[in-house]
């Protein structure tokens, strides 16, 4: 059985339509969405309504949460004050444009979905704002999957699609306690786990301009990262027409999303 996982749609209708059309040609059984339906892009209502119409099971992203609850992350979300100012402009614009019905839909989304031995979140099991980057500390990455109680953790938020398998792990634990002065020494095998990041449909940050998503084949237990071309000009024109910062269009057109990576991606937002 094949499952598609999409994430970080960011109100980019043209990209969402192209990805869903690609999924429809792949004999996909289910689609799961990891949130961030809105933010940055010019078609928040259209994208939310498309997801609702297709009845795609979705968990809440950090942008979806912020639209409902207000901006509550600390300054970890942005790499610079300029980026933060632009982000806040997009937040305000989206809040004004989004219908009450669509806001209610975003508010109703769960923060995680569990399906068998798979766990689906936007950022990490810790927080919708935490980035699980492909090269983060391997032991911390393993801990994030373990805390979800799953074999495979599906996430988004970084906008970088990847599959990371963690295995052949072990650690020696040596304990001295107060009552027993003798040390206890054991070697423990660490579990084999996997993180799958679906990348981003509406705001790719992999250095190219194509939308990305992943297909999980649970019979073969493999994961395919798919790139999908879409009508970028249509989205860029809509961004300009909407009065959103022009840099959002420039980034999509040139695949320059690396400029918006958080500096300290290992930081866990405490708010």
């Amino acid at each position, binding site marked *: 059985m094949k499952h598609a996982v999409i994430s970080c749609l960011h109100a980019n209708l043209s990209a969402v339509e192209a990805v869903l059309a690609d999924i429809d040609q792949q004999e996909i059984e289910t689609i799961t969405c990891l949130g961030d339906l809105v933010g940055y892009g010019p078609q928040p209502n259209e994208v939310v309504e498309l997801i609702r119409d297709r009845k795609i099971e979705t968990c809440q992203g950090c942008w979806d949460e912020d639209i409902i609850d207000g901006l509550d992350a600390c300054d970890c979300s942005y790499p610079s004050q300029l980026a933060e100012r632009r982000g806040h402009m997009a937040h305000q614009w989206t809040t004004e444009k989004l219908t009450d019905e669509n806001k209610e839909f975003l508010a109703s989304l769960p923060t995680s979905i569990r399906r068998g031995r798979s766990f689906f979140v936007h950022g990490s099991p810790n927080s919708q704002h935490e980035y699980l980057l*492909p090269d983060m500390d391997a032991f911390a990455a393993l*801990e994030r999957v373990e805390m979800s109680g799953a074999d495979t953790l599906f996430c988004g938020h970084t906008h970088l699609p990847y599959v*990371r398998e963690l295995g*052949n*792990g072990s*650690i*020696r*634990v040596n304990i001295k306690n107060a009552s027993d002065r003798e040390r206890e020494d054991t070697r423990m095998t660490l579990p084999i786990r996997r993180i799958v990041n679906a990348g981003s449909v509406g705001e790719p940050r992999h250095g190219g301009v194509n939308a990305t998503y992943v297909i999980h084949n649970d019979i073969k237990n493999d994961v395919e990262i798919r*790139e999908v071309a879409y009508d970028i000009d249509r989205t860029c024109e809509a961004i300009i027409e909407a009065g959103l910062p022009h840099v959002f269009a420039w980034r999509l057109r040139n695949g320059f999303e690396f400029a918006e990576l958080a500096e300290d991606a290992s930081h866990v937002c405490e708010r």
Partner: protein
Amino acid sequence: MIERWALLSGLMGDLETYELIQKDLKNTRGDITLFVLGDVVGPDKNCDALLNRLVNPHRGDLKPNCIYGWWEEQLLAESGYRGERKADALRLNKGDDAVTALMNAVDPYYLGWISSLQFGFVELDCGLIHGSSKDVGDILTMQTPPLTLLDRITRLNVNRLFTARSKQQFHLELTDAVVDSKVKDLNGKRNQEHTLPKRAVIGIGAGANYTLYDVGSDQTHFLTVGDMTKSRGKGFA
């Protein structure tokens, strides 16, 4: 001069025990720094005398370096120092009576001092904290999974984490950690073996049970009030 840290927690208003520990430490050789890792207040007895002693140490006392613990967090929350949050965890676990008892056990005069306490200290490559780097209420024990312990250490970017919340005394070392990582992305595949240098989590105990740490040799000594007096000339004196 041997550099040593004395680490204690969980006094919960018990001035007598604090005085006995101070007495023990006077009999201990070395250049000693005293760290009090929270839970100096509690609901069971009036805490004002102990708080007064911590704020105004007697002549000859080792000066205490204090952080706040779980009970101080509950007290501060209930007293309006944590925004809209109240002592929900305490109320949930022990009921309204415990919240009332805690509020009655501390004179509001001391709230300003308690609210000025830090979440933890980072000394050399060690984190000194009440619970963990994740939360003041986080309980780390000898049974906590190694990956969780590594995560709490990594979050503080230290090699050793001293914790008090479990009330247990233990020195747990994590060594020879290794894991293989295989990443596939749009640029292809790459494999890497990850290893970690030695890390440790030290449970310092609570109340009459406290810990001495020899900074130079990385040795911990788990003590109970009176041990120093009994062992003069033998062990740590």
